[in-house]
């Protein structure tokens, strides 16, 4: 059957080809091309965040805010402090939602010897309870701030159509306080799982503002090998290769296969983590890509604490619902960069003087991770001379899941 070649339990459709005689692994991406970069041309700028959030149902907030930031840069808009805080809160909920969905429901069954997230309910009820409580909290923050748990309804270029009432934030604060133990449990659970032990040389890159753990604010791209670059040059620094047998491009940073996402952020920014996360760092091996799932659990805890902190600030301060307006003579070209759950995301938007989109370019985290996935898959084949083809396939599919690829994003 055609569909059976698709790797199960990843977002979107991809296949793994293993040339067993030559011990080579290769990925083929098979998701249909929706052509978002064509869909948006000639449509008004304000539709960009609405439409791009529909690139991915797992990280819609990241796309929504990347487009908002790109359009604001193009229009010379400076959003107010309340807006920035609410967006950071949205990003925290986005990371929690996406990581919980992936790490618990799709990846953890690999390490627990079961098939599906639903089986957790009977076979690992404590883990299941942790997962659904955290998913619930992530969804509630999104609902309160973004208007819906999955695709945002409240956001707009310049600010928010609607901001949450203090009463809603007070309720949210209470719920966050009450459920903190589940976020701690997430880090504990993933610190104790049995990951395949591999040592693979990985180079990590992450967006950063050099002041905070990466998320909403990004100024430069930093690398674990001190090979930094400016975000304005993202298109030159991240080169996308087109392969004729793949609907997704393969992105390399300065011609190297690099890893982006939770493990990359943790490797480059562990000093900025919430102190409560630090003890779980000891369990993290930055040469083992399977530990990306542990890094995701540590980030769940970090962003949970971050969400609590932001809600606290919002409750203390006077909220400003004003939507910021375009400046005179704006550049009409802008880049919006955010650290999405899976890594650095770039939206570039060009507008004409009527506010219509003339050009949009999107580089997603998974595109950047694809060459690294192949490199790590190759390392597994090279480092495991005695395994069978079936074992190799199972292990490499696990590896691909550990990277948390989002093929729907990668193709877009």
């Amino acid at each position, binding site marked *: 059957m055609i569909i059976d070649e*698709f790797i199960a*339990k990843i977002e*979107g459709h991809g296949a793994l080809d293993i040339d067993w005689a030559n011990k080579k692994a290769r990925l083929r991406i098979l998701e249909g091309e929706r052509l978002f970069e064509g869909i948006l041309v000639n449509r008004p700028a304000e539709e960009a965040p609405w439409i791009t959030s529909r690139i991915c149902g797992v990280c819609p907030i990241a796309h929504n805010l990347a487009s908002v930031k790109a359009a604001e840069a193009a229009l010379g808009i400076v959003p107010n402090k309340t807006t920035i805080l609410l967006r950071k809160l949205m990003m925290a909920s986005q990371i929690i939602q996406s990581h919980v969905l992936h790490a618990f429901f799709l990846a953890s069954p690999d390490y627990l010897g079961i098939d*599906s997230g639903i089986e957790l309910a009977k076979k690992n009820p404590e883990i299941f309870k942790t997962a659904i409580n955290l998913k619930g909290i992530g969804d509630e923050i999104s609902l309160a701030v973004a*208007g819906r748990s999955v695709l945002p309804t409240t956001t707009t270029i310049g600010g928010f159509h609607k901001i949450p009432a203090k009463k809603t934030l007070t309720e949210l604060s209470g719920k966050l306080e009450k459920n903190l133990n589940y976020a701690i449990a997430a880090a504990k659970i993933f610190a104790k799982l049995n990951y395949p032990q591999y040592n693979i040389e990985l180079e990590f890159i992450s967006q950063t503002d050099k002041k905070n753990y990466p998320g909403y604010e990004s100024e430069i791209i930093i690398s674990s090998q001190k090979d930094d670059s400016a975000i304005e040059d993202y298109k030159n620094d991240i080169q996308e290769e087109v392969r004729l047998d793949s609907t997704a491009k393969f992105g390399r940073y300065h011609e190297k296969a690099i890893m982006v996402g939770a493990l990359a952020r943790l490797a480059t920014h562990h000093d900025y983590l919430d102190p409560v996360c630090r003890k779980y760092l000891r369990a993290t091996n930055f040469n083992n890509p399977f530990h990306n799932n542990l890094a995701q659990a540590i980030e769940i805890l970090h962003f949970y604490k971050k969400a609590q902190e932001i809600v606290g600030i919002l409750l203390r301060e006077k909220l400003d619902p004003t939507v910021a307006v375009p400046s005179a003579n704006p550049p009409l070209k802008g880049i919006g960069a955010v650290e999405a759950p899976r890594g650095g995301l770039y939206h570039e938007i060009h507008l004409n003087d009527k506010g219509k989109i003339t050009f949009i370019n999107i580089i997603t985290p998974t595109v950047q991770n694809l060459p690294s996935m192949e490199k790590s898959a190759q390392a597994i084949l090279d480092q495991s001379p005695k395994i069978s083809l079936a074992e190799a396939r199972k292990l490499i599919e696990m590896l691909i899941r550990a990277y948390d690829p989002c093929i729907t994003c990668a193709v877009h």
Partner: protein
Amino acid sequence: MTNDKKLKLGLFDFTDCEGCQVELVGLKEKLLALSERVDIVNWRLGQAKAQWEQFDIALIEGTPLTPGEIDLLKIIREKSRLLVGLGTCATLGGIPAILDKEERQQWYNKIYGPEYEGRGVDALPLSAYVKIDFLIHGCPISGNEAARIFSDLINGKKLNYKDYSVCFECKLANLPCRLLEKKPCLGPIAQGACGAICLKGGSACYGCFGIKEGANVGALLTILNKFASEEEIENYFSMFHNKSKLYDHR
């Protein structure tokens, strides 16, 4: 555990954002309760186990964009007693359907380069290729409305839509009327059950739940034409209805 008396359910995804499946996972305990009443024999996103015999119910998310997906849709149809579309990509073509078939080649050239051969044929609803038994609309679906329909489906009840439009739900929520504020809105003709969630957030209604049966599209167009340009109206209708039948009515 396989129970022969349980209905065999397959959940499939074609090209899309998978957000409707995320909405389903968001049902948490409710999803677990529903899942215990069926035997999920095939669900690529959720499990590795995959059977390919008969399905009592096949749920399909996404638009069948590639030739492989179109073939697979036909195969699933043959194997399924009931075929249900899940989410607007499956039911109306969704966001990918904003692009017309003849526009695709120029974008393959621009995005991938001239040597690349695009896989996608045209973003169309499932109904363009096979008979569909029921459509669960929404971009994304409403988890609670989907749960209500699943429950009826499992119990063998006749499936139906709520007998009201988004406009009705918007009024129930006491929201200011966009049309009175001279902002386009498809709420009066849009099938309800979403709880007017986009309008509650301050966004427009583009009618992602489909056009309500018997809706007076002409009357809405008369109102829209009083304050909105043709292009603006076109943008609203093309968001989710570029390939749906409604488009032909205009």
